[in-house]
Each structure stands twice: as C-alpha cells, then as structure tokens.
C-alpha cells in the first residue's frame, strides 16, 4: 500500500507558553520550540505499521518552509521512506482550503492508495483532511482510532466518537483518514536515527512545479488578529508561600466537601 501522510511543523504547546507579540498580529515566535504536530506523529506511526503488515511505502509531505525539513526528517527517522517539501512564498498567506489545494496538487504527482492527516493541528481547525478528500473525490473519515486492511480495495476503520465509543465502518480505497491520538504508541526517535537520514535528499516543489497560481490559493478565510479574551469570571489566584497557599486551599476544600 502506498501511503501519503500530511504533517505540519507546529509550536509545541506543552513546551511553550503562547503569548502575543507586541503588535497583536501574531504570537511571539522567537524562542518557540517547534515539533511535529502531535496527531501527525500518530498518523505516521500508523502508516509505518500498515506498511510493515502489507508492504508498500510511506511518504511524508508538508506545506511549509525550509525549516519544515526538520519534521520531515524526524518522521523519516521514524521509518517513513520518503519526504516531500512543498514550499513557496505564494503559500504563506493561504488558508486551510489553500493548504488542501497544494496537497491535492502533490497527490496528483504520485499514486497513493491511502492518505492520512492528523485530526487537528495547532490552529484547532481540523479541516485540511476533509477538504483534501472532497477535492480528490475520495471518501473520508475523521478521528480514526483503528485501521484494519480487509483487502486491497477496502479498509475496516474505527472512529472515536463522543463518550469514547467507537464507530466501525468499511471504507473504499483510495480514501483520506484523519487520525486521532491514542490509535497506537508512536516509536521513540533517537538522535542516531535522525543522523541516519540527515543527508537524504528531500525534493522540494514550488507553486510552479505544482501548476498552482495565486488565484487557486486565494483565501476565503483570513485571520485578522490574535488576542487574549477578557477573562470570564476568572479564578481567584492563591498567592504567598507554599504553606500559606496550602492553608488557604485546605480551608476551601473542607468547606466544599473536598476532604473526606
């Protein structure tokens, strides 16, 4: 099975406190630690496991810039066979639809039976996978937490729906699936693994190579600003020494029935 996995380089929110820049038009990007989007890492692991079972190869692709090469290499160190970087200044101002348009153009240059995305990225949109599927006229399923191959035309999949219940379906190939965390346990990537793929050539395609012009990438949705909303009621913050905080907290917990 030929599998394409779409990955994105994002600020790691568990490592960073996200703050606004002084102009309020972006987050403060200096000093941010970046990594591969959490959901995408599960998608790559799943693709590798499928190929281990049934054969084929895994290609990881990202729409980004030169710095995005590092996440492609990281996922290749995990076991993805090929990397593909889609980079062009013309890609910078586009929206989710534009990202899907770029990915679609890259899909057209290969033959893939299965395309995986993450369920969600840093923008919280969860849109690129479903858009890409519609552009390709492929069936789609979101928040997938189980994939079994039935035959070379069909997969049996599970979607994680509300309450942790699992919705089981059959889906025809080729298809696009957005992957939910927890579907597997992504393997660890050591520094040695990264070194091994450090000099592998990663082809880069620009707008022209993909036959895309500005009109095709014109956004319908534009981000106007970033802001931190006025707090709702906001928490009463306990301050002082640890002993003082604990004393106050114990009083509150007792009053609210939090200690038995």
């Amino acid at each position: 099975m030929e599998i394409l996995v779409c990955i994105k380089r994002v600020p790691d929110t568990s490592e960073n406190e996200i703050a606004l820049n002084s102009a309020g038009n972006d987050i403060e990007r200096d000093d941010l630690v970046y990594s591969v989007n959490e959901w995408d890492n599960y998608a790559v692991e799943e693709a590798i496991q499928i190929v281990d079972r049934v054969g084929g190869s895994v290609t990881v692709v990202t729409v980004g810039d030169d710095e995005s090469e590092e996440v492609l290499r990281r996922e290749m160190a995990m076991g993805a066979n090929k990397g593909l970087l889609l980079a062009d200044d013309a890609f910078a101002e586009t929206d989710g639809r534009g990202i899907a348009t770029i990915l679609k153009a890259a899909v057209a240059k290969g033959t893939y039976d299965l395309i995986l995305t993450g369920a969600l990225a840093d923008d919280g949109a969860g849109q690129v996978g479903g858009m890409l599927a519609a552009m390709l006229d492929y069936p789609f399923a979101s928040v997938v937490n189980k994939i079994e191959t039935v035959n070379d035309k069909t997969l049996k999949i599970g979607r994680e729906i509300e309450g942790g219940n699992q919705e089981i379906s059959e889906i025809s190939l080729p298809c696009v699936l957005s992957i939910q965390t927890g579907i597997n346990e992504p393997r660890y990537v050591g520094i040695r693994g990264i070194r091994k793929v450090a000099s592998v050539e990663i082809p880069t395609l620009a707008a022209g190579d993909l036959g895309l012009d500005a009109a095709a990438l014109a956004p319908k949705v534009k981000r106007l600003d970033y802001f931190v909303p006025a707090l709702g009621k906001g928490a009463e913050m306990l301050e002082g020494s640890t002993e003082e905080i604990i004393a106050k907290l114990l009083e509150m917990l007792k009053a609210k029935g939090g200690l038995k």
Partner: protein
Amino acid sequence: MAQIFAYIVHKNGVADDTALELLTAAKKIDPAASVTAIVTGEGSALDAVAGQVAKAYNEVWKFSAPVFAYPNAEAVRPLLVKVLPAGAILLVAHDTFGMDLAPGLSIKLNAALVTDVVGIEGLDGSTLKLVRQEFGGQVSTHVAADVSTGAVLTPRAGSFTAAEAAASGPVVDKSAEAGDLVVKRRFIEVVAAEVGDVDITKEDVLVSIGRGIEEQDNIEIAQDLAKAMGAVVSCSRPIVDAKWLEKSRQVGTSGQTVKPKVYLACGISGSFQHLGGLKGNPFIVAINKNAKAPIFQVADVGIVANILEFMPALTEAIEEGK
C-alpha cells in the same frame, strides 16, 4: 441575504442540546433570518426530532431514508450538496459528526469554512466576522470569512446560549429530493467504551492529572493525594494515549462526563474537549505552572505551581492535619 440552515444532530429521537444553540448563532449572523433546520434519519425517531425542532425553527426539512438511519456524514454530505440553494450558510455543531461533514461540504459547495466557532460578531456586506481559538485555547483570533458563495460554520457546543423555542414552523418532508446517493463508507456498528475498575462519573471528588504529570512514575503522586483526600484519580486525554491510566478515567468529550463537587485539575491546560466532560458546576481548583493556561479562566481557584512539588506538599499537609 443568504439563506441560513442548521443541520440538527440527534440520538434516540431527541435533538442534541446544540439544536437551539445553532439557532442563536444563526441570529447573530442575521437577526432577521428565517432559519431552516435540516434533519435526516428514519422512522418515528426522525418524526419526533422534526416535531421537536419545529417548535423553534421557521421551517424543518426532513429527509427519511434507510441510509440515514445512522448519521453517516458520507451520505449526508452529497444530500446537502443536492438540496442546499446556492450561497447558503449551513451551521452544524462542532462535534465528531461536524468534523466529518463540514470540511468536505465546504469544498463541494465552494463555500467558506470556519470550524470551532466560539463567537459571531456579525455580517458586513459579504464578510462575516467570527471568533475562534488556537493553540489549545491559549489565544483567540478574529477571522473574516468571505461568504459571497456561502459558508459552512461549526459552532462549538456551549459557546452560544440556547434560543427560546419561539417560532413554530412546518415540517416539510423532502425525502423524495434525496435521490440516489453514492456512499463509499458503510456504517457497521458502534462499539461501546470499555468499563473500568472505577466509575469516575459517580465520584464527588476527583484529582485529575494532565500532561503536566510528565512521567508515568509520577502518577503515584496523584494517587497519594487522592488517597489522602478520599478522592479518585481521573485524567486528561494524553495520559490515556500514553497508556498510563485506563480510558475509563478520561474526562472529556471523548471520555467520561463527570459531575463531581470538587475537581482538582493538576497540569491540565483546559482544552474545550476536556472541559466538555465537566458538568454540574463543580468547585474547580487549577494547579498549573503556566499562569496563562486557559484552565484559569474557568477555575474557581488557581495556583501557579509545579504540581510535582505542590501535590506532595498538599498530601503531606492533609496527612498531618488528620
């Protein structure tokens, strides 16, 4: 002015709570809008939902067919492409069905897509201004959507107050318009979530841990605190993904819905999917090393601290006081 539609999710013959929230969202786009609800399904359950929704919406379009017996977005999407008028604005709740339906629908309709909408500021010409969040709720953004060719919007549950059931519209059976639909994803069954050794939904006091616990070995710190408090340990999703605790201990939209009296959120950022599982207005204490963590917006009491130090200190103080 574009026509506004709301696709209503329902289960066991009852419309989802979001049904009336979508109506509020629609009125924020256009206060004068006549809003049409769309319901798909089969049999008496569908009729019940249609009747219920008609008490609030100006009109209800009902589509009954065996393929709609289970809500399969791969069947509903081609239906909507067929029946929605050009330039329509469609609202659907941002849940796992909306995530399945909306992105592809926006492409097929050539419409703008804005997902997980938490605020609607209004329409100016063909520009709709909306509010969403990024980075797990750490920052918000205003976005401008060009809705001149229509829009698909997925409002977040709980972000819009439920509308009063003020209108009373007819239910129009449009099943005949569905025609043949090509569906390449066939629903088989729903497998219920596993039941665990404890039932966190019945506990009054929960010590809940998130990614801030950092390592599997540190889970013990939470167990010690819970023991001292007479509480039970629950958690956020990453702890279950890492297989450090079982799924039945996960609080959130894809986990359990809990209704404790007291909820200690330790090293949990406060994503809406996590908070979606917290009901009944508990007393929330948040302990987080990041003073800007979104959890502090919903907590009653906040403590900026390293949980790996604070939790053992709290445990010790409780033990001493006994």
